[in-house]
């Protein structure tokens, strides 16, 4: 526990919030210091874990392969980009037959578009095929962790909540609503008898 660098927790965040996390920062001037995305609900995130439906893949590279995958959760779409430096993830995207459930561990990255807006994407460390059980568990887990952050938002001394308030404002209703949508969606799904 002492000495060893601590591994960053993979945050659970719905696409609706992830794609709003346009502000990134480092905690130190060191070139190799980890880059964090500031989540609007008041947490820093250097890594996320996502499970959803891979709906489309496309090679958008010009000289070399550069794969973009769309991973959909109940609240929106994660854009996953993998090129030559993520060979396993790139080959998973190349070989995937959509639609399929996938789990993605990855790092949040931002880029500025031609019109000056900032897009948030996910640079995968791994992409694996999973089943519906994993996706369902993730939805409930992401809902819980999101509520945890919303609850802690007004706590005194919550540094990242203060920064989030300054960057994005203090209206979290959209993220609470995303949780409700995700779970209610889930609820109706669960009421439909599974094909046996």
């Amino acid at each position, binding site marked *: 526990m002492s000495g060893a660098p601590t591994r960053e*927790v993979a945050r659970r965040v719905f696409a609706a919030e992830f794609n709003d996390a346009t502000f990134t920062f480092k905690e130190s001037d060191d070139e190799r210091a980890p880059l964090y995305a500031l989540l609007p609900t008041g947490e820093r995130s250097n890594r996320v874990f996502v499970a959803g439906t891979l709906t489309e893949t496309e090679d958008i590279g010009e000289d070399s392969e550069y794969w973009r995958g769309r991973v959909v959760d109940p609240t929106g779409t994660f854009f996953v980009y993998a090129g030559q430096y993520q060979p396993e993830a790139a080959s998973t995207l190349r070989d995937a037959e959509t639609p399929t459930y996938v789990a993605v561990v990855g790092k949040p990255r931002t880029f500025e578009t031609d019109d000056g807006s900032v897009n948030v994407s996910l640079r995968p460390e791994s992409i694996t095929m999973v089943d519906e059980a994993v996706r369902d568990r993730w939805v409930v887990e992401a809902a819980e962790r999101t509520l945890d952050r919303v609850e802690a938002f007004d706590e005194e001394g919550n540094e990242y909540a203060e920064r989030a308030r300054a960057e994005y404002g203090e209206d979290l209703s959209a993220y609470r609503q995303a949780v409700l949508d995700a779970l209610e969606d889930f609820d109706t799904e669960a009421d439909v008898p599974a094909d046996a």
Partner: protein
Amino acid sequence: MSDLSDTAQEVHDDLSEHVDATVDDVEARLEKLVTEYKVPVDEARRSVENHYLDEAGLDRDDLAGGGGNDTVEVEDVDEAEQWVDITAKVVELWEPRSDSVGQVGLLGDPTGTIKFTKWAKSDLANLEEGKTYRLGNVVTDEYEGRYSVKLNKTTTIEEVDEEFEVGDNEDEVEGALVDVQSGSGLIKRCPEEDCTRVLQNGRCNEHGEVEGEFDLRIKGVLDDGTDVHEVIFDEEATEDLTDIGLEEAKQMAKDALDTTVVADEMRAKILGKYYRVTGPTFGRYVLANETTLLDDQPDPESVLIRARSM
């Protein structure tokens, strides 16, 4: 003088098994020593206790706990420098690495196991493996988060006839398996006696170039969104987890002329899934004894209620 009546109550409770005295009797004796003869409370307490013990023809050692130590179970040891009594079975004896150590090994009770050290100069009888003892007056110690007990000159050893299953201090961790680290899959270990180091490019750190022995291992990371836990799966646990056994793994590596295909295949099977792992913790790692895939339908209802009430 509520202090005195508290003390009197304690003395009375300690002695009540052996002595027929009321709390008032005890307090009167204490009162006399403390107020009339200006004896400090501690000393007065001692004196009063001795009086009653004499009267009953008892030694101080006959009192429960041999002088007021807590009798603890292994899992309760969570602080260094505590004098305690413990009843435990000798699970294993190890080879002492130093002349100052008489015996060293592992004690266990139903709640878990703990290392013990008996100093050579303590002049105590030797403990035997498999036997259960009541050990009075041992001292707890801590090193890098792990606790042990030390037997010393004042320790009493009494063999007792108690049968129990020794428990394992197991932790339970769960989460999504978010990483399978390097050094996982089909690995080679140094074949030298007592050296099980994993070879790097055919070399052992200690013994240089050696003909390695194949083994299976996974170093994984379970992450629940709040904490990360590093988990090691040994050969058996790896086969349980991945359905790939050592022979099959060797064949895969042979066919591909490359050992890394094994880890790749394992990654594809297990990354991104949720598991619960139980096992003992050593340093940073939980050693997987039992692994359960968490694939039951989650219940969104309680989270939904929470979200609606916010």
